[in-house]
């Protein structure tokens, strides 16, 4: 028997079979996607990268409700792994073969947004028709969202592209079985001192039983969120007293003002609030598993799910996945920020940080080359309605993006807490170079024999220079943005007539550009007058 001939025949037959199946599939898909013909469905394809638990189920439920209302529509969900999503998305957009709806985020810039996506136009300034009969039926669509659709806005916020389904907040997740085993109680920490007490109990438990358990599971990603949050709490008062001038009260600490006042010695790395913030970071970092800075997010989650850590800080997006995959009950609570009554750290803080304008999560937009742009936009309006938002939260247990929608019982813990104060500034997040200086020396704070003094001695010589390169970089980046929106202003100026949409957009853009230019020049002034 000529085995070579047999194997060649098998190979060619397999190739032919694969080809036939692919061809058949393509022909079937083309038939499904052909719009407008009688009896044909419109196949709306939705691509997204958030594969965490709850999302697919929620989108299926929303899709089902939409197709109940529009029987000629068919929803196809396309979950794409986050690791490849950015490259996959740009390939689809440039190749003009995108699905009808694509998730924003994951590095999509304003230029790409304007270039490749359809604006929603005046629909955002009118009540959402899908809110008819609800308390929001007379409210402009944009105002119905917690963050006023900022997450889907383009340059200058003169156009809006995306509609969000949820908001992202950070919480501490607790392994309740382990908590009960260690403390004899199921009460989660309410204060910073409760948290420290739990950490100590956990270490004692681990030593006594010989089981390797750490208080906090962490990785570079989520640990830095926790540590930045703690440090920012200690600089709340410093921001208002030494960095902001009378009349200046910003919702966030502008990096150029922080740098300017640092260079002029209005605060230093030895200011009591800064030292306090570093000590607080050091105290908490010691409770996270060793080597956390080198670990990835999935590593930390795995560690927690294996019962090796009592708590883990993470976001809304991990809540359902943790509940699904962890073989123990989970509870959530606020991050352990010291409050004003704390005997050591209280004097530097106003209180809890407000989550009032917390950013949205899971934002979809319509690409310009979508096959079914009008239906896709209509789906977005539906997704942004109270009804769909309720389906979202009840199915996914993620918090809703629409204010006024009752979150599911599990999601209620994740709803942004409005009452609170502006955060201070984080020492670890003023820019890439200052961040590098801090991270490169962090081991001097939390490593064996580490101390606040050793850490400060190491970072101080480089800190001022690192801030300078950060501010220079931010001037360049912001100036590039202003250059592009300048051209947009010319276009609007020539088309603007009294009360026209172009006149309104030009007005918005001028205000945005003035604020942007002021930020650039405040930075230039700080650099020019640096001692």
């Amino acid at each position, binding site marked *: 028997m000529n085995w070579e001939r047999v194997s060649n025949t098998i190979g060619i037959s397999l190739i032919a079979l694969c080809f036939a199946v692919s061809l058949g599939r393509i022909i079937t898909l083309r038939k499904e996607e052909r719009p407008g013909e009688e009896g044909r469905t419109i196949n709306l394809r939705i691509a997204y990268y958030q594969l965490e638990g709850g999302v697919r189920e929620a989108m299926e439920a929303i899709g089902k409700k939409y197709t109940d209302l529009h029987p000629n529509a068919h929803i196809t969900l396309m979950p794409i792994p986050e690791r490849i999503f950015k490259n996959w998305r740009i390939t689809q957009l440039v190749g003009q073969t995108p699905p009808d709806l694509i998730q924003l985020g994951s590095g999509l810039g304003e*230029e790409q947004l*304007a*270039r490749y996506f359809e604006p929603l136009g005046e629909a955002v300034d009118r009540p959402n028709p899908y809110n008819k009969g609800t308390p929001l039926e007379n409210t402009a669509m944009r105002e119905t969202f*917690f*963050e*006023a659709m900022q997450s889907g806005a383009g340059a200058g*916020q003169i156009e809006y592209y995306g509609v969000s389904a949820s908001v992202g907040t950070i919480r501490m997740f607790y392994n309740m079985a382990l908590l009960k085993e260690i403390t004899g109680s199921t009460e989660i920490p309410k204060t910073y001192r409760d948290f420290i007490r739990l950490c100590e109990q956990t270490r004692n438990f681990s030593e006594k039983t010989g089981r390797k358990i750490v208080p906090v599971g962490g990785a570079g990603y989520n640990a830095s969120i926790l540590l930045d949050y703690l440090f920012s709490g200690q600089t709340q008062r410093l921001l208002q007293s030494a960095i902001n*001038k*009378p*009349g*200046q*009260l910003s*919702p*966030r600490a502008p990096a150029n003002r922080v740098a300017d006042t640092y260079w002029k010695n209005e605060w230093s790395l030895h200011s009591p609030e800064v030292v306090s913030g570093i000590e607080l970071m050091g105290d908490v970092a010691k409770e996270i598993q060793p080597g956390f800075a080198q670990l990835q997010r999935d590593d930390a989650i795995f560690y927690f799910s294996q019962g090796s850590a009592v708590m883990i800080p993470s976001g809304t997006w991990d809540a359902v996945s943790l509940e699904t995959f962890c073989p123990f009950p989970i509870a959530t609570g606020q991050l352990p920020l010291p409050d004003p009554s704390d005997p050591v750290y209280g004097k530097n803080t*106003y209180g809890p*940080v*407000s989550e*009032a*304008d917390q950013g949205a999560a899971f934002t979809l937009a319509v690409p310009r080359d979508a096959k079914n742009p009008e239906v896709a936009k209509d789906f977005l309006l539906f997704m942004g309605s109270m009804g769909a938002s309720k389906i979202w939260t009840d199915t996914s247990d993620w918090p809703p993006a629409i*204010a006024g929608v009752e979150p599911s019982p599990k999601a209620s813990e994740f709803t942004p807490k*409005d*009452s*609170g*104060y*502006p*955060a201070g500034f984080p020492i670890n997040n003023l820019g890439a170079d200052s961040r590098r200086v801090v991270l490169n020396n962090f081991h001097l704070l939390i490593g064996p024999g580490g101390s606040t003094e050793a850490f400060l001695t190491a970072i101080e010589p480089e800190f001022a220079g690192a801030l300078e390169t950060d501010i220079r970089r931010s001037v360049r980046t912001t*100036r590039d943005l*202003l*250059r*592009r929106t*300048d*051209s*947009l*202003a*010319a*276009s609007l*100026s*020539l*088309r603007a007539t009294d009360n026209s949409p172009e006149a*309104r957009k*030009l*007005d*918005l853009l*001028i*205000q*945005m*550009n*003035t*604020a942007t*230019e*002021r930020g*650039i*020049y*405040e930075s*230039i*002034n700080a650099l*020019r*007058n640096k001692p």
Partner: protein
Amino acid sequence: MITRCNHIPVRLLKFPLRLEIACLLVASLGLEVLGCPANAGSLKKAWAEVDTFRFNEAVRSFASQEGREALFGQAVAMLNSQPRTQNKIREAISIFEKLSMENSCDPIGALGRYYAGRAYQLHLDPPEREKALASYRSALDLGSGLPLVETAAVSIIFIEVYDGPNSGALERLESLEPLAEKLRTQIGLREFHTTMGYAYLNFAKTDTNRQRALTHLLEADRLKATRPQAEAELWVAIGETANHLGQRETALTYYRKFADTYKRDRRNHLIRERIKSENDGK
């Protein structure tokens, strides 16, 4: 003679290579043909390309049109088309200046003078500060009544006051007060007063300076910010400045407006505490 087995036949090496080169030539010619627009398109299409940041395409579209607007559009698109070079920016500046010299009375002429200033200030690297100032001042002198052109006053403030030593900043700021007389539009005046107000706050040494800031910010508010973030910033700045100056009624009025309107702003709770504290102190 063709050798087989592991050796690639030498004769076959030459044939595919010539074929490859031929295919590449045909393909590139084809792409060249495809790249040239069969139809030059309209000004509307060209501006739509600017709106979506397709600057290279916009340059080509404008270049295929005639008239002042097409030339102006081409120069605007050139400022951001790739590759960005200083020569290209200077070429755009010459177009702006030429358009303005030919006729400074139409919108294109006025915008040309403004954008020459913009190019000197923002697009050239390093910026040419004096030429930017000269272009901006002469744009204001035209009295065009175009809001965008009137924002030249704002850029003059930034260049003269911020891009200089802090000593003397207040004096330079005060010397720019007469710029308001050249402004006719609500938008132009609002942005001028907003910028002057924040500048006084930034460089203030005394409460007299802060009072000047407050006067400007109140005027800016009277002229009505339409962007929510701008309005929120204005109201907080007015409330805080008035509070600092002991002008309790003004402070409370603006604190209340902010607290009732911007419920989902991180400062809302702190401002409500300020209101309570003011009321308790009454």
